[in-house]
């Protein structure tokens, strides 16, 4: 498929949506590295260079897991819609969405940097942040909705013009992703607008803490699929072509994205297995549904592996397994393959660990220990992060007509990241599972303070392993920043101004069965399942919470008065 020439406003907006979060990512990565240093006791204190531990943790989480991922999903979605539907974006929604997202992010960033929002990205009511933090994040989320609303008329008019064609798989995947995002983030919008914001402004007196937690995790787990699905779109529609082959089955891809629509959301209670307020039966139901959401990922593992095997055989493999070695791992011009395949390899370990967390009472062995960040750095910090880095660079070269500046350095990014992340997550996972190391804790100040009363020597080894991994990951990130900004400021080699992606053809391309190839029935089914799965837990939190909580600042055990 040919490159699609984009208009000037789309060009500027896409550039902002890609470059702005990558600049913020410098701060996010820096605070990530510092976390490992604090936790191991290398930095032994409350703050370093003017940023406190929990403030830095909030910055790390919000920037890396919310800002970068949301901006990327919108930018990648904008580019895919234009490329596959061959239509310019609606100027009004495009501008409104980027203004809301950038403005909201800056509001939240100011609140965090001024130290008035050290409540982590999970909010943790009744700890209170500055209203600008809640409002800023809400605006950023609404901005991403606006982008989605802008795609719907483009899609429906494309359908009218092409009544006999199947929806392009990438478009199908991206629309599925934003259906999930819209349903899920509606609950966090309710949490912010009806509870946290009026409460932090002093308009309402107390809040039901367990209810806010349930509303958060209603959003918080589908959020991870919102991170993941853009990477899946890359695996299905881009990777097979870059590898030199075809997508094994188009239908499997469609089915996977549709299954995510119905299974991503009604599973959030698995973050609350160890909490009071919700009955066991509901927790078990959410556990079953969480196991269900592993199915589309297992199917993806098969389909992508089959696609790569096909590519390997096309590249000349003859034996049973030698196709694995006939893939462009070290081809500098096919760097998207390295970013993709390394992410996939990481995800095997990430997904397997995730099944442990979802396993109902088995969760007691790992809940809130270092195992959990060990796990999600192998998912959001693995496949998701690498897909974002690779594709952000790729889109920049197309929009600005650049050639990647430091090709060898760029190719080293995923490999260094892989090595660092494996060491890093081993430290965290072992620390959590074997030695009960708590997550989100400035252990350098207490348990790893040699000479202090609460020194715990058995956490030294695992936290230092984490530091080693963290340093290698940071080096990989520095390689990336050099490549990204080097490319950005290099001379253009062609006129650019386009969006273009490798397009993987389907090996098994089934005919268009019209009723199945519609998203609306899946979305309606999702709403029904969500209502059934969440009616009980929400009623539970209302029935079982006896007292409402006043507000607290993280710095004081005395309730905050307005």
């Amino acid at each position, binding site marked *: 498929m040919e490159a699609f020439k984009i208009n000037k406003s789309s060009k500027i907006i896409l550039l902002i949506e890609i470059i702005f979060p990558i600049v913020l990512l410098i701060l996010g990565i820096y605070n990530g590295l510092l976390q490992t240093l604090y936790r191991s006791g290398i930095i032994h204190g409350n703050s370093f260079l003017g940023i*406190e531990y*929990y403030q830095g943790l909030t910055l790390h989480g919000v920037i890396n897991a919310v800002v970068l991922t949301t901006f990327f999903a919108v930018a990648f979605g904008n580019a895919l819609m234009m490329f596959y539907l061959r239509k310019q974006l609606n100027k009004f929604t495009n501008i409104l969405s980027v203004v809301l997202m950038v403005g909201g992010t800056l509001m939240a960033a100011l609140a965090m940097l001024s130290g008035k929002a*050290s409540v982590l990205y999970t909010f*943790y009511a*009744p*700890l209170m942040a500055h209203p600008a933090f809640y409002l800023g994040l809400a605006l950023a989320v609404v901005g991403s909705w606006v982008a989605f609303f802008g795609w719907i008329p483009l899609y429906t008019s494309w359908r009218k013009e092409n009544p006999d064609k199947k929806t392009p798989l990438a478009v199908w995947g991206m629309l599925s992703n934003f259906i999930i995002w819209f349903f899920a983030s509606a609950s966090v919008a309710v949490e912010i607008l009806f509870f946290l914001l009026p409460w932090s402004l002093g308009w309402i007196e107390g809040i*039901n*803490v*367990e209810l806010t*937690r349930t509303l958060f995790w209603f959003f918080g787990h589908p959020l991870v699929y919102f991170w993941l699905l853009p990477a899946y779109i890359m695996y299905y529609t881009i990777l097979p072509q870059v590898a030199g082959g075809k997508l*094994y*089955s188009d*239908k*499997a891809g469609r089915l996977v994205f549709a299954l995510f629509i119905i299974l991503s959301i009604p599973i959030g209670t698995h973050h*609350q297995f*160890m*909490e*009071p*307020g919700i009955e*066991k039966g509901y927790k078990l139901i959410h*556990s079953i549904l969480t*196991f269900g959401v*592993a*199915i589309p990922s*297992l*199917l993806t593992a*098969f*389909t992508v592996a*089959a696609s790569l095997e096909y590519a390997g055989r096309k590249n000349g493999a003859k034996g049973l397994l030698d196709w694995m070695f006939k893939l462009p791992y070290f081809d500098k011009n096919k760097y998207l393959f390295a970013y993709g395949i390394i992410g996939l390899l990481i995800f095997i370990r990430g997904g397997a660990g995730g099944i442990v967390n979802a396993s*109902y*009472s*088995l*969760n*007691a*062995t790992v*809940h*809130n*220990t270092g195992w959990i960040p060990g796990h999600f750095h192998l998912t959001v910090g693995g496949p998701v992060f690498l897909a974002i880095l690779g594709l952000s660079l790729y889109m920049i070269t197309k929009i600005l007509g650049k050639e990647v500046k430091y090709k060898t350095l760029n190719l080293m990014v995923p490999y260094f990241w892989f090595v660092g992340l494996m060491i890093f997550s081993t430290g965290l996972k072992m620390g959590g599972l074997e030695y*009960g190391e*708590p997550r*989100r*804790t*400035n*252990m350098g*100040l*207490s348990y790893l303070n040699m000479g202090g009363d609460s020194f715990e020597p058995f956490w030294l080894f695992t936290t230092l392993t984490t530091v080693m991994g963290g340093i290698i990951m940071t080096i990989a990130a520095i390689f990336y920043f050099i490549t990204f900004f080097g490319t950005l400021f290099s001379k253009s080699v062609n006129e650019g101004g386009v969006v273009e992606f490798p397009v993987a053809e389907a090996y*098994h391309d*089934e005919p268009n069965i019209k009723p199945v190839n519609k998203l609306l029935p899946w979305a309606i089914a999702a709403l029904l399942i969500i209502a059934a799965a969440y009616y009980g837990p929400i009623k*539970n939190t209302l*029935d*079982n*919470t*006896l*007292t409402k*909580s006043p507000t*607290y600042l*993280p*710095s004081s*055990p005395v*309730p905050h008065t307005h």
Partner: protein
Amino acid sequence: MDKSEKTALTLGLIFITFLFFLVLILSKALGQDVPECITPETIFESGELVTIEEGKHYQLKSVGRMWTFEPAEVVIPVGSELEIFLTAKDVVHGFYLRGTNVNMMAVPGTINYKTMKFTKPGIYPIYCHEYCGSGHQFMKGVIKVTQ
């Protein structure tokens, strides 16, 4: 979908179902269930250890608050059954007894419940493992199980 793909899907389903049965065995047959949801009349305000049967059966009413557990230290004899009732006075806290399956959240306005039989003597530290403000890393308690 071709045949191999259907096989992969079926194997995936079987694998997941098998894992889920292991989960059921663990929680229902081996008695390692998730914490209980208690619907109390009132929330207790202060923590205490209540003796139900000397040397055998105790109830711990534990209150998490910024940045300590109340009571901070509990002493019980080995072989005793401890019923843990947990709540929080101010913000959300964690209650993690290292080396055991006691891993609970303390949420204001609700009561969490779990029982644990201590068959080995020793010192069992309790860590708060949920971020609860600037003093979080110092929030620790202990259960001492004596001979």
